[in-house]
């Protein structure tokens, strides 16, 4: 006879079986029994200072490792505070499991203290969610939650557990099989389609590989590199795909899209074949859809059938796991070519010549000044220190775009940002999660002065756990990206974008017990960054940059991606 266990203990047992090492969370009334069981359990609990940041930290943990991140919150406000973090994970397909407490089953629906309809509220914020009202369901639900989060197209799963389930007792039988009859996971890809794709690739004169977050999520970076080298096509990585192909790889043509490089956007527009791998043709990549890659046929490989032909019709779709499909595609390409006697491909040489010319015409290079720190200069310095190896987290906005453009990522899972949802306040808590998962790695949290102030409470968490995250505030005194749009498209009527009263970083960090400082002259930059990195502990470096610097290239909203505004001197092509 198996032993009688409380729901709280059963939950922990199931988490342990899933290999969970750390939970980012915040306790409360109905999760008291769970926290009591955690008290002497080997799973580590990290006390964040706001539930939203628990979800972001779990994402940082997951994004930097590929493992399922776990966060936990109490009922009512605890659960509602998680929502932004869940939607963010949903948009970027990040596998996290959120555990929330719910009021006792008999109190559900009575407007009980700290009651919220978490199950209903998070329905569209998750890949799947559960409300557990019967302790007997708990083990299978937890294992299902982890399986759903991690498999197929990953995503967040929430499990809402009532207080009586935590407190109840039950014979615990480990669950050794789960059954999800309606859950379809596509893996292998259609053999015939893969063959046809290889033929299309070899027939193309101007092929282009368009690699996205799916490469990173599917750990298919090595397989991508093999394909890139077999096809020898110019390759762009999207904002979510950066690091999928090392930035120093000769075939890498940087990021495409709204703030993508000239070469990337011109090449996308000129290609006659786009090999789209784990991408979703996001509007920030495509610009005006009717003018996107107008000459290109599309091969679209994705694990999610709902992504195929959602935005752009796929001439050749392949549904499945990139890690399984890419080696077969590469093998087919090699085989067909050698069968044909490995012919020369003069068109490809011509295409490369053109792409290289675009790269030289308008390269992505930092801007420097001798009197002020240009934000691009800051990123270039961080890039120099990182050498393509540091973990960099960011918020959303100008600093995110410059960090994506100018810092090299030579491996996947180094560049961690809120891509789809674009959540401010993501950078610092996600760095906490990433640093927990990678204690020996250098972690930069590059944030704007706006987003940083949305995550201020987590300075305590950094100090609390001695996490040596290097916070680099790119401080331009504005909500920079919104200001940029107001300047360019709203006659520079700067409405509510000025961020005055930024706290003194030495006092702010000092109040928490670590070091911070402000720099504003380019001559201070290298030394200050070195000091930050050498400092034993978290460091807050406030870098005052040119306040009104704009991110270029820029594709104005509704523009075609080959109609970029390359810099401030050029008049906008859009009236």
């Amino acid at each position, binding site marked *: 006879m198996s032993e009688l266990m409380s729901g709280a203990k059963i939950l922990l047992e199931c988490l342990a079986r899933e290999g969970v090492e750390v939970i980012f969370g915040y306790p409360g009334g109905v999760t008291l029994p769970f926290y009591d069981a955690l008290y002497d359990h080997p799973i580590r609990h990290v006390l964040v200072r706001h539930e939203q940041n628990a979800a972001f930290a779990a994402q940082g943990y997951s994004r930097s490792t590929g493992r399922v991140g776990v966060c936990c919150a109490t009922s009512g406000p605890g659960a509602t505070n998680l929502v932004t973090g869940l939607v963010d994970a949903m948009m970027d397909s990040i596998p996290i499991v959120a555990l929330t407490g719910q009021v006792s089953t008999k109190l559900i629906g009575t407007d009980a203290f700290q009651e919220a309809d978490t199950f209903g509220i998070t*329905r569209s914020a998750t890949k799947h969610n559960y409300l557990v009202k019967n302790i007997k369901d708990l083990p299978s639900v937890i294992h299902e939650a982890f*399986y759903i989060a*991690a*498999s197929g197209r990953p995503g967040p799963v929430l499990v809402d557990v009532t207080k009586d389930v935590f407190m109840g007792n039950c014979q615990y039988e480990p669950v050794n*099989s789960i059954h999800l009859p309606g859950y379809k996971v596509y893996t292998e890809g259609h053999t015939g389609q893969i063959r046809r794709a290889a033929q299309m690739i070899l027939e193309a004169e101007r092929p282009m590989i368009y690699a996205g977050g799916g490469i990173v999520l599917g750990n298919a970076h090595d397989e991508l590199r093999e394909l890139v080298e077999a096809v020898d096509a110019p390759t762009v990585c999207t904002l979510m795909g950066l690091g999928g192909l090392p930035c120093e790889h000769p075939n890498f043509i940087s990021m495409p899209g709204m703030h993508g490089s000239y070469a990337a956007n011109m090449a996308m527009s000129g290609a006659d074949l786009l090999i789209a791998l784990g991408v979703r043709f996001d509007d920030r990549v495509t610009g005006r859809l009717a003018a996107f890659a107008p000459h290109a046929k599309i091969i679209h490989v994705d694990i999610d059938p*709902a992504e195929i032909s959602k935005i752009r019709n796929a001439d050749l779709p392949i549904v499945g796991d990139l890690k399984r499909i890419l080696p077969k595609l590469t093998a087919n390409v090699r085989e067909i070519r050698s069968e044909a006697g490995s012919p020369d491909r003069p068109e490809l040489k011509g295409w490369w010549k053109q792409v290289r010319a675009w790269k030289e015409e308008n390269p992505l290079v930092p801007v420097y000044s001798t009197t002020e720190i240009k934000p691009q200069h800051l990123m270039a310095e961080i890039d120099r220190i990182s050498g393509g190896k540091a973990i960099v987290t960011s918020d959303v906005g100008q600093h995110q775009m410059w960090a994506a453009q100018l810092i090299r990522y030579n491996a996947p899972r180094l560049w961690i940002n809120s891509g789809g949802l674009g959540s401010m306040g993501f950078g610092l808590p996600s760095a906490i999660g990433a640093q927990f998962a990678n204690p020996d790695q250098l972690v930069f949290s590059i944030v704007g002065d706006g987003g940083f102030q949305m995550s201020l409470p987590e300075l305590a968490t950094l100090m609390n756990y001695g996490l040596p995250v290097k916070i680099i505030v790119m401080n331009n005194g504005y909500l920079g990206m919104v200001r940029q749009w107001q300047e360019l498209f709203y006659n520079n009527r700067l409405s509510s974008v000025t961020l005055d009263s930024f706290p003194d970083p030495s006092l702010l960090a000092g109040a928490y017990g670590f070091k911070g400082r402000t720099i504003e002259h380019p001559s201070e930059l290298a030394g200050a960054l070195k000091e930050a990195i050498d400092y034993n502990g978290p460091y807050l470096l406030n870098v005052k940059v040119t306040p009104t610097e704009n991110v270029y290239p820029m594709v104005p909203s509704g523009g075609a991606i080959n109609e970029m505004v390359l810099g401030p001197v050029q008049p906008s092509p859009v009236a």
Partner: protein
Amino acid sequence: MLQIISLLMENKAGALMRVTGLLTARGYNIDSLTVARTLDAGLSRMTIAVDIEPQGRRQLIKQMNKLINVLQATDLSEGPAVTREMVLMRVRASQESRAAILKESEIFGARVVDSTLEGFALEATGDAEKLDEFVNIMQSYGEIEVTRSGAVAVSLESKKLRLSPPIPRGEIMLVEEKNGVA
């Protein structure tokens, strides 16, 4: 013109909300929706009548098929299918009109399910247009009250239902391990 989407889904709390949530999130109005258990009490069959342009509908059905609780979502407007709806109606009938009402009911294949001094309760099934006509005609006899079931439909071709088999623990751990960078 309405289209019919048919779903086979797990009979679980919240499953209905997941399906309707996909429609409301896109601002689609549901014209009618019926749901009831199938031969297998663990499963439900849902029929939704909506008006969505083909591209949006294809995308929506893919999204429905992604739902964990949905075993199969099918667009019945793209294949042979039979659609029926039921109407229950109370008609106030004067003594003089009673015979005429019964005659009309017979023409439409409606049945009398209750008869009182005030009038009749009638039941009719058919396609939506035919029922519209029936309702119109009955209105001419006086005050009526109508409840319609909404469309139920069955496909006339058998579609292969692919169900995922149970997943043993070893395989679960394999998926999670594969995703984890050691």
